[in-house]
């Protein structure tokens, strides 16, 4: 009798958990914590302050661009052009920037405007032509990449040292990159949960017809999500160019898939309408942590494990899609 009751209780608990986990990102945060357990055993040096700081610094760019991608995917779309936007912005920044303060501020502002503009183009194309976001952003992605190659004439351009110093300063566990990410996260969180736009984005992805019935123009909301994605991509391009003091048409290469992975692993549904920024946060940590863990493993055990990063990342996304699919299957 008690077995039966405890079984019922367990079933009740797991159902409750399922309900909560749909709305919040508890699942992925718990998974992240669980994942840290074997890490603690295999490579305990992971938890050294310096290393943790590195992890947070490394996740910052992915985290930032994934925030933008979250908005797009929540709205039922996808942005395949983030990688090339990042590269293009890095090239423009490194080409134009000089030592003067005005130049630094001006070029930064210009790049942010550029990112917003790229996003606007994406949204505009989708507004005018009834084509799948995948195809549209795949094409604009190739286009931006082509422009990046075209502009990448000299060897990397120039970024003043002070620009780098400002962007990459860190003390202990606190670092400017991670702090920037947190700032962006909080800003995005407020936008998504406390402003009208946030509601409309969820509605756009969940049931776009509802918006049309109310008189809110869904193409406009869509454009806004892509503009946000463009802004975050530009931000990441600026950060990378500051960190490496040079631009490259390849900086953004992996970011498209990685940002999608972070978002999906974090629990946002590919179809839109369901998901959280907090989940993306955890997803970004998980994905970027992989490199760090693999490097530590390689160092300690003298293995060539760093090469496995791409394989594992691809597998993680596949597994995440299968796992979360069960959630929407009902």
């Amino acid at each position, binding site marked *: 009798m008690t077995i039966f009751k405890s079984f019922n209780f367990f079933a009740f608990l797991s159902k409750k958990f399922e309900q909560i986990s749909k709305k919040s990102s508890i699942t992925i945060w718990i998974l992240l914590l669980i994942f840290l357990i074997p890490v603690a055993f295999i490579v305990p040096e992971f938890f050294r302050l310096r290393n943790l700081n590195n992890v947070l610094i490394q996740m910052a760019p992915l985290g930032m661009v994934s925030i933008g991608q979250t908005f797009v995917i929540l709205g039922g779309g996808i942005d395949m052009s983030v990688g090339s936007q990042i590269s293009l912005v890095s090239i423009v920044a490194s080409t134009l920037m000089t030592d003067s303060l005005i130049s630094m501020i001006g070029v930064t502002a210009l790049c942010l405007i550029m990112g917003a503009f790229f996003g606007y183009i994406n949204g505009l*194309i989708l507004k*005018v*032509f*009834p*084509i*799948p976001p*995948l*195809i*549209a952003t795949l*094409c*604009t*992605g*190739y*286009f931006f*990449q*082509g*422009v*990046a*190659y*075209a502009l990448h004439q000299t060897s990397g351009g120039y970024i003043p040292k002070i620009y780098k110093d400002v962007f990459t300063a860190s003390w202990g566990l606190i670092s400017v990159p991670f702090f920037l990410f947190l700032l962006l996260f909080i800003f995005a969180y407020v936008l998504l949960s406390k402003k009208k736009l946030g509601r409309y984005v969820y509605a756009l992805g969940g049931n776009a017809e509802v918006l049309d019935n109310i008189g809110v123009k869904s193409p406009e909301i869509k454009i806004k999500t892509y503009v946000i994605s463009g802004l975050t991509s530009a931000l990441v391009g600026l950060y990378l160019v500051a960190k490496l003091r040079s631009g490259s048409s390849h900086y953004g290469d992996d970011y498209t*898939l990685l940002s*999608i992975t972070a978002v999906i692993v974090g629990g946002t549904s*590919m179809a839109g309408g369901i998901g959280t920024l907090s989940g993306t946060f955890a997803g970004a940590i998980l994905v970027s942590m992989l490199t760090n863990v693999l490097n530590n493993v390689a160092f300690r055990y003298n293995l*060539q494990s760093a*090469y*496995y*990063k*791409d*394989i*594992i*990342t*691809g*597998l993680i*996304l*596949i597994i995440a*899609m*299968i796992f979360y*699919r069960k959630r929407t299957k009902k």
Partner: protein
Amino acid sequence: MIFNKSNLKKFNVKSFHFKGVVGISIGFVLLQILSYIISPASANFADFANLLKQSAGLGLLAIGQTYVIITGGIDLCLGSIVTLVHVVTIGLMDGKAGNIIPVCMLGLLIGAVAGFLNGLGITKAKIAPFVMTLCTDFILRGLIMVYTKGQPKGTLAEAFRNVGRERVFGSISVSVFVWLFCSCLFIFILYKTVFGKHVRMVGANMECARFSGVNNDRVLISVYTIAGFLAALAAIILTTEMSATSLNLGADYSMDSISAVVIGGTMFSGGIGGVEGTIAGTLVIRLITSLLQKANVVNWGKLIIQSVLILGVVASNSRRKK
């Protein structure tokens, strides 16, 4: 063109596609003429034969992509399959002629398995084609790194490289022959076999296919497996003509194959198109590449022109259809 009922009656599915193929072929001819104007020295058969030779690998790959896009999907990992099979082939052959057949078989198997896994993920795990193939792409790239550790090794057997030097019917290289042969084979399959018609219906109306007794999963898995297989075949053919390993061999192939297929008249919406258009599309893409090479703006010019082309074709089709 106003699409009302009376106009539609005079409108012919086969002729719509036929017009598309004719259109792109004319485009190719015009482009070819343009290139002759730019560099008159190239107006000879040897140059044209060379263009064909350059197109063979892409053409072979694009056959598989055509089938995939006809079913309403997309395959973003074909380029990585090419690179992987290429490095594995060179790496394992070790210069020995006796290794040729088994190594090639292995290469083809790798491509087929990769495609098969794509098909599984798409049908059984219900993962969207672009996500699944993007993941496979990443995984394959990782495998390439693991296998080569950044430094591809190995040598090809002389007999193998001789295949690359062989000429069929006088001046047609083996690669072109294989490409054209496979194209004809797959055109035949698409138009004349039950399987081909199933492929088309799955892309045109998946539910209708299902209600007509088609095993949709089987069709899709087959299509992706074929795409992977053909990519591996392309890799082997390309490798016969190369003297050194290139880690970048497959780099552009994914995008190029999509361009070739789309401008050749096959539509993302599914069900419409065919390999004959892709042949013309391949030639156009390669011709554009060679023109850009002459103008010295290959890498960026290619991306910009192709992205605009694809977007243009898809956008104009989208407004017209409904």
